[in-house]
Every structure is written in C-alpha cells, then in structure tokens.
C-alpha cells in the first residue's frame, strides 16, 4: 500500500448514511478531528506495520473465536479495525441513563412475571405473549433470588439511524458475550497508538472485571461468608472459550466445566486435588437448557445434575438467573418501553426500533404486505440466525418466510430496515464506510455499572448490516472521550 493516508481519507465516501466520523464529505465531526489529523500524517508503511502488530498480538495471545464446521483450523482471530469509534461524553451520558433505566425495568419485569404478574393482570402485556415465550420458566414462579436481581450482566445492542439517534435493537439478557474483545482491543490500541491516548482523555474500561467480580460476590447466598465464585464454561470447543478463560483469569476465579462440579445434599462442590470444595456463586456461560440434565435437556453433558435443586434451595447463586430469556424474547422486546412507563413511571430515554408483531392481526397483515421493506426475525434466535432481510431476499425466500410467519405468528417480529450508521474502516487498500452497532455491557449488582463505550462491531463485508463474528463481522475500539473542543 503506497497511497498516502490523507488521500485515503479524502477519497472517503459518506453516501446516504449517518457517518460516525464525517458530518459531510471531508468535514470531520469535532471529536474526531485530532484522530483524523494523526491518521493522515501516518506513513502508509507505518500504518501497515501497526496493523500487523495488532494481528500478531491477537494471534499470539490466542484471542480467537471458534468457527463451527470449518476444517481450516477451528480458531480465528476476530478481525480488528484500527480506526476507533469515538463517543463524546455528553452523548454517552444519555446512553448510560437510558441503559440504566432499561435494565432496572427489565429486572422489575422479571420479578413481577415470576411473582404477582401485575403487568399481565393490568393488561399492559398480553398474557399469551409471556406464556408462549420459549424461555419463560413457570417452574420458577414465586422463587426468590438474592436482592431480587435476575439479569446481572446484560449486553444491549444499539444502532444509530440516519439522523444519528441511538435506538435499542435488542437486549441480550442470557449470556451476552464479547466483553473480552473490548478489553483486549483497548490493550492493543494503547500499545499501538500510545500517542493518540495522550491527546484524548479516553475513559478507561479496565476495571470491568473487578466490577463483575463485585457483582458476583454481592449475589452470593446470604450465609456464604467469603463466597467461592466460579465461571462455568461449556469447554474449549465453545466459540467463546477464550472469553471465559480471559474473564476467569482477570477475576482470579476458577474456570470449571460441568464435570468439575458435583451436587451433594443440594449443595454444589468442585472436585479439587484435596477433595470437594463448596461453590457459592456460578457465573455460568451455559444457557438454561444445558444447565442440569435432571431438569432441562436430558442429553446435556455440559451441565451439573442436581444444580437446579441446589439453586432452588438457595445454596447456590447463578448469574444470570434462570429464566431471564423471557426478557430478551424479541416479542417481549416490543413491550420494554411500556414496562419502563409501567414500573418506573418514566418516559423511555432510548427508543426501540419500531416493531411489528406477527401475533397481532393488524401487524401481521402489514408485515405480509410489506415484506420486502422489512427485516423479519425469529423471536428466540441470536447470532444473526433465523433472520430475513427483505430487501436482499429472493422471491422464494420471501414466500418461504411469509409461510413461516403465518404458521407461527408468535415466533416472528418485523422491523423496518434501519440504515445503521457507518464508520470509516480499513478494507484491503482503502478506507470505506462500514455499518456499525454498539454493545455496551451493563452490570447490575449493588449498583448499576456500565462499561464506558462497549463493543463496536463492524460489518466488514460491503453493504452488509450483519455484524456477528460468525458472519464476517469485526470490531473496533470504542472511546468515550471527555469533550474539550465544544459541541458539534
């Protein structure tokens, strides 16, 4: 690559999207101006070297994810783009307040749903929707949790529309992953561009794991004294194993597999070289279905037989709690703004993407009439699976989805195709606008703690809006910066 960096940026096209860096072609937003100047001055060879440095550093540390059904060696590094995404502090404060409001309402909702169900009785959410939710666990009705917290760790995906408004795309209230990339990306950026960090005051993210440990200790059974906390992983072949190991290491806790644990007398122990040792809190990175073959899927070899009984007796705490999946059901998502009004008597700070529910007859007709303009999503899928992007689908795919929606209306929602914001990203030898989202990580313990920024995922394939790592996505470091240069 021999083209000067300044040329690469001056050739950059903003197109008809909200661009994170440029308000118009060539006109950088104020909080990006110093970054842009620094990048423009960089020699192409130096930049190339920095890119190699980043890739080598991720590979040698084994910062990889596992690709299923790929015989080219099962591990890959998550592509990392060196141009950071910058969020001014004032903008971040609004996001932060919105997320705190949202997770508070979601936890109140879960407590209500598993106790008195007033929100159903008051008709704010139709009963049917909850009873038919795949991840609703009626067997845990009237079950009390330490401090009534259900979701301790939440990853809420945000996107920006054409006008730059932040919208909530979905809440991940079961086992959100990706936070290790936030921490590793930051570490890599500080090594590669130390100078940039001295020019900006970037809010640190490094204390996330300590905050997470505080949450895990806080939710221990009340009689636990000094609690023993472990992280439960499905094992090294899981796509997020690197993250599990990273988090356990950073917190100084044991990482265990199901076979390391055993239940006796409704208490969970781990098998150590010195015998059995009691465990009090499990940060589980295994979904409900696989936790305990005696209660959930019988074929699960990943879980611990008897774990749920110990949980019921209050002898073990789980993060997140069992049954939180009902809160990130994509149909229930539609009702989150209503929950915020219902439980908190506040207006939602962060808006949802407008959502049509196939289960409601008017919406169903609208969906079927406007399929090519909509994104259709299955209510309980994640990772970019079970999704139809109307504008990119063939006639056959459209009619296939129309059939599925009519057969199982409860299982589908539709949303208008939102033009995600774009951020300049390196694509081979040039800089192109690529769609990005943002996943901040929210911790709910004694207080709510949100990592400043979060994971910016970028859809590196041209035109793609799917940012998932399994589908060609990459990531960027995300900076929340204190503003000095005035507002935009």
């Amino acid at each position, binding site marked *: 690559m021999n083209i000067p960096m300044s040329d690469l940026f001056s050739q950059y096209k903003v197109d008809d999207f909200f661009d994170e860096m440029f308000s118009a072609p060539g006109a950088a937003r104020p909080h990006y101006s110093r970054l842009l100047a620094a990048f423009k001055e960089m020699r192409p060879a130096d930049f190339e070297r920095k890119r190699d440095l980043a890739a080598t550093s991720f590979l*040698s540390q*084994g910062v990889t994810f596992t690709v299923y059904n790929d015989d080219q060696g099962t591990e890959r590094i998550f592509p990392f783009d060196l141009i950071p995404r910058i969020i001014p502090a004032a903008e971040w404060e609004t996001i932060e307040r919105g997320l705190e409001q949202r997770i508070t309402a979601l936890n109140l909702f879960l407590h209500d749903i598993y106790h008195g169900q007033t929100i159903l009785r008051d008709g704010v959410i139709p009963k049917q929707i909850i009873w038919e939710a795949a991840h609703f666990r009626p067997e845990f009705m009237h079950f009390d949790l330490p401090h009534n917290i259900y979701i301790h760790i939440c990853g809420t995906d945000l996107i920006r529309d054409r006008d730059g408004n932040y919208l909530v795309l979905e809440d991940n209230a079961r086992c959100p992953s990706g936070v290790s990339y936030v921490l590793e990306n930051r570490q890599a950026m500080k090594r590669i561009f130390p100078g940039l960090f001295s020019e900006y005051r970037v809010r640190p993210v490094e204390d996330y794991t300590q905050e997470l440990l505080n949450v895990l200790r806080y939710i221990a059974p009340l009689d636990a004294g000094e609690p023993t906390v472990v992280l439960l992983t499905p094992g*090294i072949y899981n796509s997020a194993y690197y993250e599990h190991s990273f988090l356990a*290491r950073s917190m100084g*806790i044991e990482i*265990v597999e199901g076979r390391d644990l055993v239940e006796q007398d409704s208490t969970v122990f781990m098998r*150590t*070289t010195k015998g059995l040792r009691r465990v009090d809190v499990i940060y589980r990175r295994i979904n409900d279905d696989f936790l305990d073959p005696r209660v959930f899927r019988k074929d699960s070899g990943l879980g611990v037989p008897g774990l749920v009984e110990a949980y019921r007796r209050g002898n073990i705490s789980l993060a997140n709690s069992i049954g939180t999946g009902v809160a990130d059901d994509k149909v229930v998502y539609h009702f989150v703004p209503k929950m915020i009004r219902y439980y908190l008597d506040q207006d939602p700070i962060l808006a949802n993407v407008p959502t049509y529910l196939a289960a409601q007859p008017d919406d169903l007709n609208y969906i079927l009439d406007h399929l090519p303009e909509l994104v259709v999503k299955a209510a309980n899928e994640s990772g970019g699976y079970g999704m139809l992007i109307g504008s990119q689908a063939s006639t056959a795919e459209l009619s296939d989805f129309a059939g599925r929606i009519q057969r199982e209306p409860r299982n589908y929602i539709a949303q208008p195709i939102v033009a995600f914001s774009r951020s300049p990203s390196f694509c081979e030898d040039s800089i192109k606008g690529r769609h990005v989202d943002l996943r901040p990580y929210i911790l709910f313990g004694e207080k709510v703690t949100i990592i400043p920024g979060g994971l910016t995922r970028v859809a590196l394939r041209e035109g793609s809006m799917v940012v998932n790592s399994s589908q060609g996505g990459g990531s960027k470091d995300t900076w929340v910066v204190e503003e000095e240069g005035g507002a935009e």
Partner: protein
Amino acid sequence: MAGGAPKAFASGRPLALQDMLSRVADSLYWMSRYIERAENDARILDVNLQLLLDLGSEVDAMQHWAPVIASLEETDLFDSLYEAADERSVTEFLTLQKDNPNSIFSCLTLARENARTTREQISSEMWEQINRLYLFVQSEEAKQLLASSPHEFFVRVIIGSHLFQGITDATMTHGEGWDFIRIGRLLERADSTSRILDVKYHILLPSGEQVGGNVDTIQWMAVLKSVSAMEAYCKLYVGQVAPWKVAEFLITHREFPRSIRYCVDSLDTALHSISGVDESRYGNEAERLSGRLRSDLDYVTIGEIFDSGLHEYLTMTQERLLEVGDAMYATYCASLTAS
C-alpha cells in the same frame, strides 16, 4: 490512594484459590509431558540424522531407523503408515505426522490444548510461548525448514521447550500447579532417557558389531549428545566413551538433569511438596512408589544393571515410572472418574 491497605487485603481473604481442580492438575501435568515429549522427539531425530552423516555407508538405513521406532513402542502405528523405515519416513512420522499422536506436531497441539483449559492457572507468558511454538509447527515455514535444514527445525523445537521451562520457573507461582508441571516433565524425561539408552541396545543387537569398535564409540557418543550429556560426561570420565560408563552416567548420576536418578529424585521431591509430607516418609501410593524407585536408584550399581540386562532394567524402570503416574492420578484426580 495514598496510605491505607490495598483493596485485596481489606476484603479479608486473598482472591486466588488455594485448592486446585483435579482436572486442571491433570491438564497441567499433560501439558508439560507433551512439551517434553516433543523436545525428546526432536533430540532423538536430530542426533540420529547426524549419526547417519558420521557413519556414512557403514550402516544401512533400515537397521538404523527401525530401532528408533521400536524403542518408542510405535512400530505398529509406523508400519500402518509407511512401507519402510528410512530417513524420510521416520522424520515425517516423528515431526509433522498428524496421525501419530506422539509426533512433535501432535504433542505441541495437545500441549496447547491442555494449556488452553488451564489458562487461568498458568502465566500469560507461558501461554504465549506455548502458542508461539504451536503456531510455528503449524506454519509453512516449519515445513520448509524441516525440508531444507532439519537441524534448525529441531533446534527451534528444543529451544522452544527450554524457553517454556524457563518462563514457567520465572513467572509461575511455585505452588501445587507448578509441582504438577514439574512432575509431568520429569516423568517424561526419565522415560525418554531410558528409551534413548534403549535405542542403543536395539541398534547393537541385530548387527552383532564388536563392542568397543569405532562405530560403537560414535554411537555411544550420539546417545550422550541426544541428551546434551557429552560435555558433562567428558568432564567426569576422562578417556574413551565406554558403554557401561555412558549407561552409569545416564542412569545413576545424581546431578545431571537428564539422568534417570536425577529425574526421580526431583519427582519424589515434587510429589512430597504437593502433599506436604516429609520426604523421609510417604503419604500416598504415588509417594511410596516414587520413594522406592528413588532409593533403588540410589543404591544400584552399573554392574548389577548389566548383569540383569540393560534392556530388561530399562523396561522395568519404564514400567515403574508408569505406575508412579497412575498412582498419582488415583490420588489426586480419582474424583474425575468416580461418578
């Protein structure tokens, strides 16, 4: 932040756990064994390739290579993959052959896999080293190097293993996990030294070459070189390289780090360090077995070994090392297989 106790102290209890998961102990042990095994593969091959250069046409390839495979107890697998044992096939079999679970490639893959499951126990530096070594044997560069300059390939593997050991000693807490790592390495090394000695037995037996001949001396020197013992040996024994002296050195020397006795001494110490039992006594079956092997090695003479047969003695030692390993698993990891 000035003054006051750091946060970790204020919370009352150190966050790091004192107890170790049985599965983790087992993985650390195997991680270490596999790295040592890869190193030993490299040593055996390197020396045998150089030996061929020295011996030139005096030895036929089959007679030279078949014993190498035999001493590793891999003859059946080897025969299923190759028609004949020669330089090319044996080298491939022990280096990059994925179908051989004990090739350098497989060992380093398995070592890394075990390291991945124990990353919160080992230091980042250890992980990065093992990962680098793994990425090297995976690379195109490794293939080319092996083809163009095999010696350099072996040196990379051997140095990589040494670096890992040095990093381990310098960056990991010398606690239980470190002891399991030591034990894995020492058991594997003792086993390997006994096999390297045994190769010599296999080479001599069919040829009937006169003991003490020139070829014999070169071969015994090769044995010493393959365990980096040539220099240490020469300091101790002035004069000719004699078979019984080489065997005496590699079996009973107290201070040479690759002798069987040294490995067993250190192994016994490491076992006692885990249990906290005094070295003069035993607290479990593994310690009883290692202690008995240790005192046998303390008192055995090379005359007795040759009287009972070197090969027989080495085979018995390998079996006893295996028993120590099994007893250790039963003591510390039995709960893994219990339910």
